[in-house]
C-alpha cells in the first residue's frame, strides 16, 4: 500500500468518524429538544427497587403532611399571634415523586396546605422563614432554595428532603405553608410486587 493509499484510508476513517460523531450529536440534541427521554426500563426498575426498600405510604407518609403543616401553623401563630387559616383539602398525588417514580403504579405522596390571612412586614417575613426552616429540618426538609418576586413583595422558600418531598413557605400578601411528603408505594402495591417476586 503506497503513501497515497494510506492517506486516503486515514482521511476516510476521519470522515466516517466525524459523520458518526455528528450523527450522535444530532440524535442527542434531538432527544433533548423533543423530550423523548422516556425513562429507561433500568431507571424504572431502579426506582421500583428503591421504593420497595422503604416503608409503605401508609406507614411513613400518610397523615404526616397535615401534622407538619399543623405544627408550622402553630409555630407561626406562637410568633405572630392568631392567624385565620384557609385549608386546601389534603390530597394524595405524585407531587413528591420524580418523573420516573410517578410512572410506577401505587407511587404516591401526600400534600397539605394552609393559607394564613395575615400580611407580614419584611422583618417578620425573614423571621417566618427561619421558623419554618427550623421546624421543617426536624422532619428532614432542609435543602433551601428561595425565589423573590420581581417587585420584592413575595418570598418563596422551598425546603426539600433528599427523598423528593418539599415544604414551601410563601410570604406575600398572606402566609402560605404547604408540605409534600416523599414518594412511597402503597402497602397494597408493595404486597403485590413482593408476591410477584415470589
Amino acid at each position, binding site marked *: 500500500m503506497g503513501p497515497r493509499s494510506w492517506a486516503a484510508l486515514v482521511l476516510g476513517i476521519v470522515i466516517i468518524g466525524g459523520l458518526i460523531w455528528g450523527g450522535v450529536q444530532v440524535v442527542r440534541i434531538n432527544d433533548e429538544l423533543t423530550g423523548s427521554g422516556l425513562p429507561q426500563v433500568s431507571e424504572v426498575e431502579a426506582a421500583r427497587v428503591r421504593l420497595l426498600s422503604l416503608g409503605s405510604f401508609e406507614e411513613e407518609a400518610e397523615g404526616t403532611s397535615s401534622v407538619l403543616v399543623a405544627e408550622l401553623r402553630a409555630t407561626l401563630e406562637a410568633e405572630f399571634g392568631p392567624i385565620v387559616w384557609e385549608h386546601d383539602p389534603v390530597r394524595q398525588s405524585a407531587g413528591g415523586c420524580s418523573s420516573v417514580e410517578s410512572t410506577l403504579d401505587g407511587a404516591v405522596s401526600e400534600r397539605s396546605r394552609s393559607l394564613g390571612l395575615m400580611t407580614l412586614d419584611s422583618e417578620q417575613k425573614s423571621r417566618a422563614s427561619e421558623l419554618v426552616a427550623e421546624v421543617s429540618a426536624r422532619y428532614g426538609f432542609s435543602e433551601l432554595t428561595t425565589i423573590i418576586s420581581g417587585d420584592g*413583595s413575595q418570598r418563596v422558600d422551598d425546603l426539600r428532603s433528599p427523598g423528593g418531598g418539599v415544604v414551601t413557605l410563601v410570604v406575600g400578601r398572606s402566609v402560605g405553608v404547604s408540605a409534600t411528603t416523599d414518594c412511597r408505594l402503597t402497602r397494597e402495591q408493595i404486597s403485590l410486587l413482593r408476591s410477584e417476586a415470589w
Partner: protein
Amino acid sequence: MALDASAISDGAVDLRRAAGRVGDDGVQVSNGWRALTDVYQSPVAPVLVTAMEPVGQGASEMSGAMQTATVALDDYARAISSLQTRRHSVAVDAEVFARAATASPDWRIEPALRAHQSSLQQSVATLESDFDDARQQCVAVLDGIVTPAVQTTGSFASTGQGPEGLGGPGDGWWDPRHLFTRSSLDAMSPAEVNAWWTSLSPAARATYLTTSPQMIGGLDGIPAAVRDAANRSRLDRELARLTAERDAMGFFERNVAQRTLSDELNEKIDAITAIYEALRKGDRQLLVFDVSGREAFAAVGVGDVDAALNVSVLVGGTGTSVESGLVQLDQDSMKMRERAAEIGEVSLMEVAVVGWVGYRAPSALWLAHDPRYAVNGRADLESFVQGVGATSIHPSKDLNLTLGGHSYAAMLVTSSVLDATTPVDSIATYGTPGIASGPFAPQVDKYWLANSDDPIRAAVVAGVFTDQPNVDDGWTELDTSQREIGGTTYLRGNDHKYLQDGSMTQYNLAALIAGRKDLLVPYESGK
C-alpha cells in the same frame, strides 16, 4: 340492509304536513277563544280565555318539535342514501376481489390480494360504523324531543332561550338545522354550542351523552365535566376496539403489508394507556379524546376548568404525542397548578391547568422548521380556548386565561391569538425557536423565557423562523437565571426544560397563570 331511504323521506313529508296542521289548529283555537270575548260577556269569560290560551302555545311548540323530527328524518334518509351508494361500490369491489381470488391458485399468499382483502374489510367496518353513527344521530334528536315532553307534562318549551343571534321560538329557533344535527353543531362557535347545550332539558342532555359521547366529548363549548364524562365513557370501548383490530392482523399484515396501520394502532393503544395513567392520579378532566384520525389527540385538565378563576392551557412542542408526552405534561401541569396556587396565594380550587396534545407536532427536530404543523393545529387550539371561555362560570372579564407554548408550540400558541376575539389574557412561550407573524390580539399580554444554555438558541441564531419575540413588539422577557444572594440560592431553568418544580422559570409561569403579573421577575440584560 333493509333500510329504505325513500320511505323515510316520505314519512318525513307526512310528518311535516301534520306539523303544519297542528300549528294552524292551535292558532285557530287560541284566536277563536280570544274572539269570543267580543260576543260573550260573563264573569268567567276571562278565565276561560286564559285557560285556552296555552293550547295555541302548546300546539305551536309541538309543531316545532315535529318539524325538528322531520329534518332529523330527512338527514337520516340522506345519510343512508349516500351510504347505500358507498355500499354498492364496496359490493362491486368485493366481487372483483372474489373473481381474482378464485382465479388465483392460493390468494392467501399473494400480497396484493391480501392487501385488497384488508382494504375491503376496513371499508365494510367503516361503512357499518357510519350507518350506526347516522342512526344514533337521528335517535338522539328524536329522544331529545320526546324525553322532555314526558318530564315536563306536555310542554315542549323546556329548551328555553336559543343561542344569541339564532333568534327565538318565533323566528326560526325551532329550525332544527340550527339545533341538533352534527353538521350544524360543528358550524357553531363554542359560545353558540354552550348556549344550545344550556338550553336543553336535563333529559335531553342525558340522551345526547348516552347516544353521542364522541360528538359531545369533542365539542368545544360543552361544559368540562360533561366532556369529561363523555370522553371517559369511550375509553374502554375504544381500547377494546383498537386492540381487537390489531390482534386480528396476521403476522404478515403487522410487519409487512400493513405495517403503517399496525404502528398507528399500537400508538393509539399506548395513547389510551397514557390517558388512563394520567386520569388515575385523580382530580383530572379528560377534555379531548380523539382516536379517529391517524394520531391520537387528548387534553387532560388538572382541577375543574369551568370553576377555576385562573385557567392555563399548556402545549408541548416537537416530539410531543399523547403516547409519549402526555404523562409528563400532566405531571408538570399538576405541579404548575400547585405552584400557581401557592404564588397566587389562592385556594387550589381557583387554578386549573390543562395539558393539551390536540395537534400533530413535528416528530423530530429536522421537521420542526415547517410551520404547517402549527397552521394545521391553529383552528383546534383557538376553538378549545374559546370553549374554555364559554363554559367558565366566571365572566370573561374575571377569568384569567393563559396559554403556554413550549418549543415548537410557540408557533402554534402565537398563531392562535391572532384573532382579536380570543378570550386569552396572556401567552408565554418558552424554549422558542420562533413565533407566528403578528399582529396579535391587542389585549393579549406576551411573555417569553429562554434559558441561557438552551440548545434551541442555535435555531434562533440560524434564523430558522423569521419572527422572534421582541421587546419592541410589546413582548416581555422573563428571568430564568440562578443567582446567589446572601447565601441564598435562586434556581435557574436549564437546558430545554422550563416546567421543573422549584425553578425560576416555573415561578414566573406560575405567577402569570395565577394572574399575579405584579410578581413577575423580568429579565435584566447584562445580569
